[in-house]
């Protein structure tokens, strides 16, 4: 690993892979760093090593990742797997942990392609062992062939839930129930956005095909579910919910929930990039222009880390950033960049036509986001409840960061990754500042765990 690269890419998902393959064609020094042992990100996780049988079950959307990984492998870009980036600043210095050693790397251009994470939504019992996020279920299957053994309940809202149900069906995992918390009013708000979405209809037809398959197998989704609670004595034993006014209980030891995904912004936060609240996507995302440039010159974003648009779109956005990096480095002229970007921009825009519809259709109800019961834990690390947050707001702490310092909410090991979004909603609802006016939890390095000894390495290196 060198100390300096012309183009440094963080994250080996579709955006990072496409950017690296594009930019490294021009002989610039380019490196891609990623936490996993193999390229592919979460979406194409384990694509190079997955047994054939498991790969088939994941379908063509997953297999598509192979071409992307092959192109990247054949490129001149240096690749550092199992490498953790624990800091980034506006001087374009990245703190890196590789094989147990820390190192600072600088770059002329940096792409942060950090991808998405599941939107954490607190509800009663969500900290019980046995309750996991749907993405976790997918990762377990993709990377280890591990699936629920005694049945599973899937609950929440969004395309991933349906995809996971369909995959489980084909593996032979018993699906005890599919609970859709999408409020019925969403159908109306989403309707005007449907015509545009039909221009990217492959997503809709796929969703319908999954539904039909599930229905044939006798699995019908319960729609209009509310008041979801996980219950059990120390571990999940059952779930309780309301379905058209009637309370129901299902015994299960695994519940997988999904409330959409949000950008993982801890690195762009730490770097000091400007972020904004995206009302339609119900999350914060880094501000950026059409070429992925953030508010810090030379720091770019692409893929779901820049705003949620899905894997296909991420690939196109990654190529655009690759071209932009080449332009910024003086390798391509503006005219060359623009003409080479045309195809990807066209496809990216077509692909994104589905988004306004999906965002409206799968919007998480405000009730779930902003008004968890007083005794529901919001900060999983420090075990701070919704009631404590509301109390802090009543006492005059009107912004997420103020609530954080007052209650310790968000100060635990996950650095607020699991509660930032929820706290902002609760604060807004409880009479604090409006969400769009609040500042996101300030990120501080290290944004990934670093042992004290590993930090010491760095000083030794400096001293030498």
């Amino acid at each position, binding site marked *: 690993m060198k100390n300096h690269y012309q183009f440094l890419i963080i994250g080996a998902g579709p955006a990072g892979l496409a950017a690296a393959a594009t930019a490294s064609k021009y002989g610039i020094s380019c490196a891609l760093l990623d936490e996993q042992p193999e390229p592919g990100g979460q979406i194409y996780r384990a694509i190079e090593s997955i047994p054939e049988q*498991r790969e088939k079950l994941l379908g063509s959307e997953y297999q598509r990742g192979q071409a992307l990984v092959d192109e990247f492998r054949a490129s001149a870009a240096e690749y550092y797997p199992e490498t953790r980036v624990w800091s980034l600043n506006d001087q374009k210095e990245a703190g890196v942990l590789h094989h147990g050693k820390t190192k600072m790397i600088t770059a002329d251009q940096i792409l942060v392609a950090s991808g998405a994470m599941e939107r*954490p939504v607190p509800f009663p019992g969500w900290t019980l062992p046995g309750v*996991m996020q749907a993405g976790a279920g997918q990762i377990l299957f993709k990377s*280890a062939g591990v699936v629920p053994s005694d049945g599973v309940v899937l609950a929440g809202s969004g395309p991933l839930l349906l995809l996971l149900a369909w995959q489980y069906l084909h593996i032979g995992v018993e699906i005890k129930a599919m609970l859709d918390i999408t409020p019925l009013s969403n159908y109306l708000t989403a309707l005007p956005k449907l015509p545009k979405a039909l221009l990217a209809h492959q997503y809709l037809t796929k969703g319908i095909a999954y539904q039909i398959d599930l229905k044939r197998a006798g699995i019908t989704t319960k729609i209009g579910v509310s008041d979801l609670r996980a219950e059990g004595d120390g*571990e999940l034993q059952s779930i309780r919910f309301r379905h058209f006014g009637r309370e129901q209980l299902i015994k299960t030891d695994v519940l997988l929930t999904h409330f959409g995904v949000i950008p*993982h912004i801890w690195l762009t936060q730490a770097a000091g990039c400007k972020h904004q609240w995206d009302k339609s996507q119900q999350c914060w995302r880094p501000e950026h222009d059409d070429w992925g440039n953030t508010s810090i010159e030379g720091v770019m974003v692409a893929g779901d880390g820049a705003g949620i648009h899905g894997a296909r779109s991420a690939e196109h956005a990654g190529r655009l950033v690759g071209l932009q990096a080449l332009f910024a480095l003086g390798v391509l002229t503006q005219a060359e960049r623009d003409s080479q970007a045309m195809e990807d921009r066209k496809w990216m825009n077509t692909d994104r036509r589905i988004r306004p519809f999906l965002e409206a259709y799968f919007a998480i109800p405000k009730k779930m986001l902003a008004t968890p019961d007083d005794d529901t834990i919001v900060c999983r690390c420090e075990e701070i409840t919704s009631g404590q947050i509301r109390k802090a707001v009543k006492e005059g702490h009107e912004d997420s960061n103020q609530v954080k310092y007052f209650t310790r909410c968000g100060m635990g090991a*996950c650095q607020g990754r699991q509660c930032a979004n929820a706290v902002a909603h609760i604060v807004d609802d409880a009479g604090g500042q409006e969400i769009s006016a609040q500042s996101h939890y300030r990120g501080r390095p290290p944004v990934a765990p670093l042992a004290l000894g590993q930090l010491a390495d760095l000083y030794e290196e400096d001293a030498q």
Partner: protein
Amino acid sequence: MFKQLANDEIETVTVILNGQEIQVPKGTTVAAIALSQGLRSTRTTPISNTKRAPFCMMGVCYDCLMVIDGKANQRACVTYVEQGMQVECQQGTGPSLGDAQ
């Protein structure tokens, strides 16, 4: 609970999970192993001493902290199994020799 689908193509390594030697597929994470071995929880919290288990499996929730090769507070979902690795459930903050994270 969870189970691992049958798969004979994969090489295995030996790890010691809570004192018990087990053969597990190479290339898997400690969290995936813990779950497929039937562990329902992998730690207790330092604050209320309640049980927790892996939640996100992608390194962002920090609920999968375990003691790995004597070091506390290791995220089991981003740690890959290695031959001879010692893995234990973590009680609270875990043994003091762990690095604070």
